[in-house]
């Protein structure tokens, strides 16, 4: 187990290095610079700006400076568009909002997905089973950027239960998280149903029943720990999907999170902010994937020997 984690940690390093380097050079080779704005600046001002941000140095020098600051100080540099603010400050400001949105969405996805999936598997071919597959179908076929506006149209504008946008009170959290969580609840429900059906026919479940364990205990103690395995392996892609999904959700609901900031910074050519956000998201995804892998091995003894 320890060796497994150590090996995976070592694998992460080249992945992250590739991401940082590729993004760094991709941005530098882009046609047009960060200061090619609507207002043309005089060459003198441009030179001063470039000197201020170190863009006049040779490219490899810029790269080593950036990497050095990143590795030794965790410093992502100054923002090109928000004068006097650093990328670290902006991320510290916006990231908690996105994390909150993502965490609530993931919670919704797991809570409803698991419940629907377990009921669908236990009461196979019943009303609940069809209900669960219908919900799953909606989640898979109606993308967030259609579902979100539709929910706003109905619940916020027509019924007036929620605000159409914003992120101020707890009630503002409901629609965005529900929209984002719905898709993944659908997948979780499908995977849980499949996993449970496979497990429920196995001998050890019969053994548990024969010992006189209550049906509740059989399902939640014995079956679920095996039936949940496909869901665990789906968590990696789900987390990555929720992160990118937040770009759209934060745009629709005008939530001041990092997702919207990332899209804006890309449009504004705020190179350092783009770079910083990509590094952050990539590291988050890679590290969360590692945790998911570890949990998977820990829960499934069969994998330990591979």
């Amino acid at each position, binding site marked *: 187990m320890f060796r497994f984690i150590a090996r995976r940690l070592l694998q992460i390093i080249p992945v992250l290095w590739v991401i940082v380097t590729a993004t760094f050079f991709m941005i530098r080779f882009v046609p047009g610079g960060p200061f090619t704005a609507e207002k043309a600046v005089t060459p003198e001002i441009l030179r001063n700006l470039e000197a201020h941000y170190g863009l006049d140095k040779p490219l490899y020098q810029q790269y080593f400076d950036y990497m050095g600051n990143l590795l030794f100080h965790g410093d992502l540099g100054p923002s090109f568009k928000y004068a006097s603010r650093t990328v670290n400050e902006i991320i510290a400001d916006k990231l908690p909002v996105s994390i909150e949105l993502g965490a609530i969405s993931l919670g919704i996805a797991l809570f409803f997905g698991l419940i629907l999936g377990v009921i669908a598997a236990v009461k196979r071919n019943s009303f609940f089973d069809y209900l669960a597959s219908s919900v799953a179908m909606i989640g898979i076929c109606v993308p967030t950027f259609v579902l979100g*506006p539709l929910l706003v149209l109905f619940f916020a504008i027509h019924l007036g239960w929620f605000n159409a946008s914003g992120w101020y009170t707890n009630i503002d959290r409901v629609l965005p998280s529900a929209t984002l969580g719905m898709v993944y609840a659908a997948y979780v429900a499908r995977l849980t149903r499949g996993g449970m059906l496979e497990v429920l026919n196995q001998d050890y479940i019969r053994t548990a029943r024969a010992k006189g364990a209550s049906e509740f205990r059989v399902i939640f103690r014995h079956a679920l720990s095996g039936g949940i395995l496909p869901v665990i392996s789906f968590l990696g892609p789900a987390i990555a999907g929720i992160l990118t999904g937040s770009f759209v959700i934060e745009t629709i609901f005008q939530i001041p999170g990092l997702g919207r900031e990332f899209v804006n910074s890309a*449009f504004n050519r705020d190179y350092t902010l783009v770079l910083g956000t990509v590094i952050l998201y990539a590291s988050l995804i890679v590290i969360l994937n590692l945790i998911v892998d570890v949990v998977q091995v820990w829960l499934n003894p069969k994998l330990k020997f591979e």
Partner: protein
Amino acid sequence: MPTILPSEPIPDVPIELEQGSSLWRDAWHRLSKNKIAVFGGVTLIVLTIACIFGPLISSYSYEDQDLYLGASAPSAEHWLGTDTLGRDLFVRLLVGGRISIGVGLCATLVALTIGVIYGATAGFFGGKIDAFMMRIVDIMYALPFTIFVILLMVFFGRNIVLLFVAIGAVEWLTMARIVRGQIMSIKSMEFIEAARSIGLGKRRIIFRHMIPNVLGPIIVYTTLTIPAVMLLEAFLSFLGLGVQPPLSSWGVLIKDGAEKMEEFWWLLLFPGSVFSLTLFSLNFLGDGLRDALDVQSSKD
């Protein structure tokens, strides 16, 4: 089970030679029994034909503006209403469909080509080459590719060719894994050995003998890749990074509709429904094909 006793005379009926039924015929038969998959297939055919020919016979063009009319609700003249510039939504939807479906098909073709060649090569050679090639795939799986596609679109212009190349370059990974697994499993079968024993070259064995035999899974995953690709295109267009005006795709129409839905609900509802219906059809057709061709689900 009825058994024929030796003493019994063999019934003298003309023996009808049973028609050999091929894998494809069996699959077709099974597919045609799957109502929801047939529904999906028919919907897709109808939609595609409507998108190709609809705009040609309509009396409106997708860019004709009628500023006096402005946004109007669905009516006899404009079946699905008009947008704020007075353009007919029905025709715009069909023209947008051409782009959405077109991008879906082209990007899938890119993904298919890369994925099949890569996966087949890794599976055929095996050993160290395979380990190295699949390790690259593993690493790429871990990368947040959607973010890179966004960066590509922002920095290198929102060009439609780049769009589907970028999407295709993201979506080939699963295809490569599936093809590799399939190739591995047929590699040691006799007919491949036979092909090798008569001295065929590696390329010929891969493309003439192996790939046709793993066509089933390839078809299934191609069908399932198309909706994923269309979703990504619409996602980018929704963020304003995909298809640019005056061209429109379903993603662009949904974006416009979402901005104006408070007053003009039809601008959101119709593009959203058509898009969802298409995703639904493609997903269920893919699922149906998977069952019909009896492809083991290696995804979930």
